[in-house]
């Protein structure tokens, strides 16, 4: 299977690649439009600031390809946030890929420390194959200050001060707000589910 990790110019590409390799997969890291368009499955990773990542995607001429993906694609952390229509960052609103309706805003952590950093619990809401063998209360590793609100596209929720979307899905496009590549057995299970996913 051709599995392509989209090179967004962000820093955690190799961690994501290693995580799939531990499962026996052989992902390629690429920013070539043709390689991405013809991949069987796509991974959109990302850490850092949304405007920086979107600028990289734009500069690499990948916007129109990503807006039209038909194959299964999973966004990770910032990569998931980029799937939404709009994102807030430092008080500004920027445009995302628009594959999942909704807006990503600052997390309302109430009086808890921010960023939301560490292991928090997943609350699966639906029977979606990406969440096979994931139980309510399983822990995943989060590190972020922004998040998507709960919506009809929320497959699993998490709560830190207030609830937000931990796993999202619309049609062939899905995302994890946490880092499956750093979420021990729970994360490995989700990546394995992604590899086995048939939509």
């Amino acid at each position, binding site marked *: 299977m051709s599995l392509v990790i989209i090179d967004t110019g962000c*820093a*955690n*590409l*190799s*961690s994501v690649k*290693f*995580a799939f*390799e*531990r499962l026996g997969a052989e992902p390629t890291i690429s920013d070539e439009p043709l390689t991405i368009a013809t991949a069987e499955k796509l991974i959109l990773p990302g*850490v*850092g*600031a949304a405007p920086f990542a979107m600028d990289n995607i734009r500069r690499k001429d990948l916007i129109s390809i990503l807006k039209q993906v038909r194959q299964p694609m999973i966004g990770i952390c910032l990569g998931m946030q980029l799937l939404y229509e709009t994102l807030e960052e430092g008080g500004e609103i920027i445009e995302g890929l628009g594959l999942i309706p909704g807006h990503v805003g600052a997390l309302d952590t109430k009086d*808890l*420390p*921010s*960023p*939301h*950093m*560490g*292991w*928090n*619990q997943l609350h699966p809401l639906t029977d979606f194959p990406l969440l096979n063998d994931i139980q309510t209360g399983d*822990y995943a*590793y989060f*590190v*972020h*200050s922004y998040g998507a609100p709960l919506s009809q596209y929320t497959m699993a929720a998490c*709560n*830190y001060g207030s609830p937000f979307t931990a796993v999202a899905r619309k049609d062939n496009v899905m995302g994890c707000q946490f*880092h499956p*590549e*750093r*979420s*021990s*057995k729970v*994360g*490995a299970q989700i990546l394995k589910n992604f590899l086995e996913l048939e939509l």
Partner: protein
Amino acid sequence: MLARRIIPCLDVRDGRVVKGVQFRNHEDVGDILELAMRYRDEGADELVFYDITASVDDRTVSPEWISLISSEIDIPFCVAGGIDSVEAAGARLSAGADKISVNSPALARPELIDELVAAFGTQCIVSGIDSFFDGKVYRVKSHTGDPDKMRETGREMLDWAKEVIERGVGEIVLNCMNQDGVRQGYDIPQLSALRKVCPVPLIASGGAGAPEHFRDVFKKANVDGALAASVFHKSIIAIPDLKRNLKESGIEVRL
């Protein structure tokens, strides 16, 4: 609910894990990757690798072993030691480190923090603070990797902590030097004082000797994580036992 984190700290010198007492007399405790994999299997929530000689010998932690660790480890890890530029930090993050902790180079040039935050985001920049209580005030020290090269910075802990928070770090690791390696418990008063003014995650370091020390630091100083070295390296405390113990005390942990 967010779990409190248990974080083994691996002091690295010349490619081996070492441990000293109050930053002196380091002894060899094992191979980096072997220990890292042991802690991963035992349920550690995160790992920290400190290249303790990097700042004092003017070199930085090697991307090669970061990449090796990243390929084997499926929990987050932070690297520290002599990282003094956006390029140096970028090379380590690209090699697979999840977070970068800066200490001496940020004390020498505080703008480094702003540059790192702008380049990589607040979530992966950690400030390590080594603080020594002289009987009156908590004094920040730098270059603590080698006792002969340790320096006074003229800064007080709370002032420096407020500055790094303002400059945008996403987490603080407060290492209370008086407690380091002596296993008498964390410095609860000092950590509580910082907690009151610290809106970012706070990690306690220095002094863990028994499970009740972890319980106390979570309950009394309300820290997000507790870092320890010798009790884990020497198998004085087993991480699975510690976590069960904390859970029974009503502290949220990932089992």
